[in-house]
């Protein structure tokens, strides 16, 4: 008895290792109610699968009998298995006492695995000499076996053959079904990966906003890619230009020994500048350039960020969580790098153009300030205060930046006012005052043809209007004065009061603040005055200090202009 149990255990191990047990279990369950038992024999005659839920007759008698080692194969079983597998047709065998077997060839993935058999009690089963001999070999009680057999239907050759044919067709359907299920699963898996890559690319392109810092963009891209490819660490090297340059960084749960990230970044850039295509190293011990990383890392994937022929930086991943870096990973990372490189190039162009424009505007302002000796750094301070007022009024950052520009250019029209008038220390004659009052309109005229800054013209044109309507050039009042004009007006007056002139010292901050309060509603928009007063002297002082540093540079520039 115990030997049988061991035999069955062995059989199931074998089955699990080599055949699709689920398919066979399913088939076995269909034929079991008919009193037949499913078993799979390999070409060498060993049992690869046996219905684990079969009755005692099959488990204790049929299965051991099929497995019983007979050196010379007297029952001809092994020979018959060979015949069936060769002929691929249905066969019926009566070789074993009391049993009839219907056999069909069994293939998986178009590979012949063996012979699938249905075993039934044969119509000739009786407790005769044959069976008693087998029982004694197997250590079975013949009477017990006979009792077990009585409950089973008997099968003749023809009946078992019919069942075997049915088995063949059901088996083919089953195999087809299970292979389709497998295909579906694999396609779904592929599709899931594709969705993942697609949404990664969407997400990354969504993050490509020009006003975002490139380092922030690349950090987020690294974190996103890390999840999708499944790596321990993901990093970036940026060596594009002065603004878009950063020390190599590595994100993720892993950390490298001190200095290794920098060393890796430098080495990667050296390699990528030459080859200009992805580096895939799945075994760092065998790589001559990166074997020094062994100990902290195993695998490396890196792709260049390049613009035309110039390598601006690179993206790199360290240690894939499952398996090796493959062509899918390097392709995905490359396409992300290509997209990011375009973004990087645009960011560089934007910074170039923006830097050039701001430089030109500062030069223009410096030229104005140079003409008017009293107002050194005035435009810059009005710009900063204007921007602060815009922010405090609740405007978004991009809009507030326009107020900075308006402040910078508000007095540009003074270029058209005679220097003698601008620099006169005594009282102006009515004619001179008329000349001076033209500067907002002259400024607006100077700027009106520059499409990119036409939105700041109201700040230039209306910065001498008063809330009570007594200002110039148009005498607009209240809300009729564009908000930009009202803001620049307040910023302009405050700076005029506090800054030193050659002929007088600037007012103390407190006096200027109370002056703003006093003129709220007459000269200034009362709402804005309130916002201004909330800023408080500490922050105003802070702003002036910040400006002093900048104005040193401006003063130098003015010096150069004067000298020229």
């Amino acid at each position, binding site marked *: 008895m115990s030997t049988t149990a061991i035999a069955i255990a062995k059989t199931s191990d074998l089955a699990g290792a080599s055949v699709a047990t689920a398919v066979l279990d399913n088939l076995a369950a269909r034929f079991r109610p008919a009193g037949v038992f499913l078993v799979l024999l390999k070409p060498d005659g060993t049992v690869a699968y046996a219905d684990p839920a079969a009755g005692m007759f099959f488990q204790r008698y049929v299965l051991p009998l099929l497995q019983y080692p007979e050196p010379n194969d007297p029952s001809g079983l092994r020979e018959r298995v060979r015949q069936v597998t060769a002929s691929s047709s249905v066969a019926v065998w009566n070789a074993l006492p009391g049993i009839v077997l219907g056999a069909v060839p069994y293939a998986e993935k178009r590979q012949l695995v063996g012979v699938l058999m249905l075993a039934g009690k044969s119509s000739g089963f009786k407790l005769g000499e044959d069976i008693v001999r087998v029982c004694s070999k197997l250590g079975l009680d013949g009477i017990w076996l006979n009792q077990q057999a009585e409950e089973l239907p008997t099968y003749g050759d023809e009946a078992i053959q019919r069942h075997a044919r049915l088995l063949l067709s059901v088996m083919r359907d089953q195999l087809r079904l299970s292979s389709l299920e497998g295909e*579906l*699963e694999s*396609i*779904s*898996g592929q*599709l*899931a990966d594709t*969705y*993942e890559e*697609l*949404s*990664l690319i*969407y*997400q990354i392109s969504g993050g490509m906003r020009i006003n975002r810092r490139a380092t922030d963009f690349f950090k987020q891209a690294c974190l996103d890619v890390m*999840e*999708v490819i499944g790596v321990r660490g993901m990093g970036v090297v940026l060596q594009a230009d002065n603004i878009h340059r950063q020390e190599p960084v590595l994100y993720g749960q892993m950390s490298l020994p001190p200095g290794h990230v920098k060393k890796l970044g430098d080495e990667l850039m050296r390699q990528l500048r030459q080859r200009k295509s992805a580096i895939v190293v799945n075994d760092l011990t065998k790589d001559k350039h990166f074997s020094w990383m062994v100990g902290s890392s195993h695998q490396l994937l890196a792709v260049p960020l390049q613009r035309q022929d110039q390598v601006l930086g690179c993206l790199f991943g360290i240690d894939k969580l499952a398996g090796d870096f493959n062509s899918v990973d390097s392709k995905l990372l490359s396409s992300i790098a290509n997209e990011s490189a375009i973004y990087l190039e645009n960011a560089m162009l934007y910074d170039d153009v923006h830097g050039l424009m701001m430089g030109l505007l500062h030069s223009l302002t410096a030229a104005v300030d140079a003409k008017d000796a009293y107002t050194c750094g005035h435009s810059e301070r009005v710009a900063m205060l204007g921007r602060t007022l815009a922010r405090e009024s609740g405007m978004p950052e991009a809009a507030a930046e326009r107020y900075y520009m308006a402040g910078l250019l508000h007095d540009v029209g003074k270029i058209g006012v005679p220097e003698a008038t601008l620099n006169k220390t005594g009282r102006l004659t009515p004619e001179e005052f008329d000349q001076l009052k033209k500067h907002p309109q002259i400024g607006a005229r100077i700027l009106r043809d520059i499409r990119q800054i036409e939105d700041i013209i109201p700040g230039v044109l209306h910065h001498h209007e008063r809330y009570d309507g007594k200002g110039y050039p148009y005498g607009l009042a209240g809300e009729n004065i564009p908000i930009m004009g009202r803001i620049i007006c307040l910023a302009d007056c405050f700076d005029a009061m506090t800054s030193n002139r050659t002929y007088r010292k600037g007012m103390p901050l407190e006096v200027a603040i109370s002056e703003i309060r006093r003129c709220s509603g007459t000269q200034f928009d009362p709402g804005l005055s309130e916002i201004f007063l909330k800023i408080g002297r500490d922050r105003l002082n802070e702003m002036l200090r910040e400006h002093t540093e900048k104005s040193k540079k401006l003063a130098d520039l003015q010096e150069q202009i004067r000298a020229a």
Partner: protein
Amino acid sequence: MTAKKILVADDESHILNVVSLKLKNAGYVVVTARDGQEALELAHLERPDLLITDYHMPQLSGLELCQKLKADPATANIPAIMLTARGYELEAGDTEKSGILCMISKPFSPRQLLATVTEVLQKTAA
């Protein structure tokens, strides 16, 4: 702890297969429906812990499905995640009243969907 049961409803079989594969691999029991009506019947029969449904479906839309589930005390507590190509059609009030905890727009990241499922199930368990 027994595995959580999730009902997935979508008339597009590729979405259905991708979502079920991802959930099955993560150890959830998955029941699938190919339209809103089938999903409604299965929700009563299977009492899932969570519903993931498409918005545009024949017979019964995802929103109608959620409203019907919400109206019946037996299924009112099943939280829902809605997959949609047109999230903007839904009013915030509608989603709240129908037990829809979040919207995920197609094409979605299966990984993020799984993360959302885990989060929603943790939240509702607490």
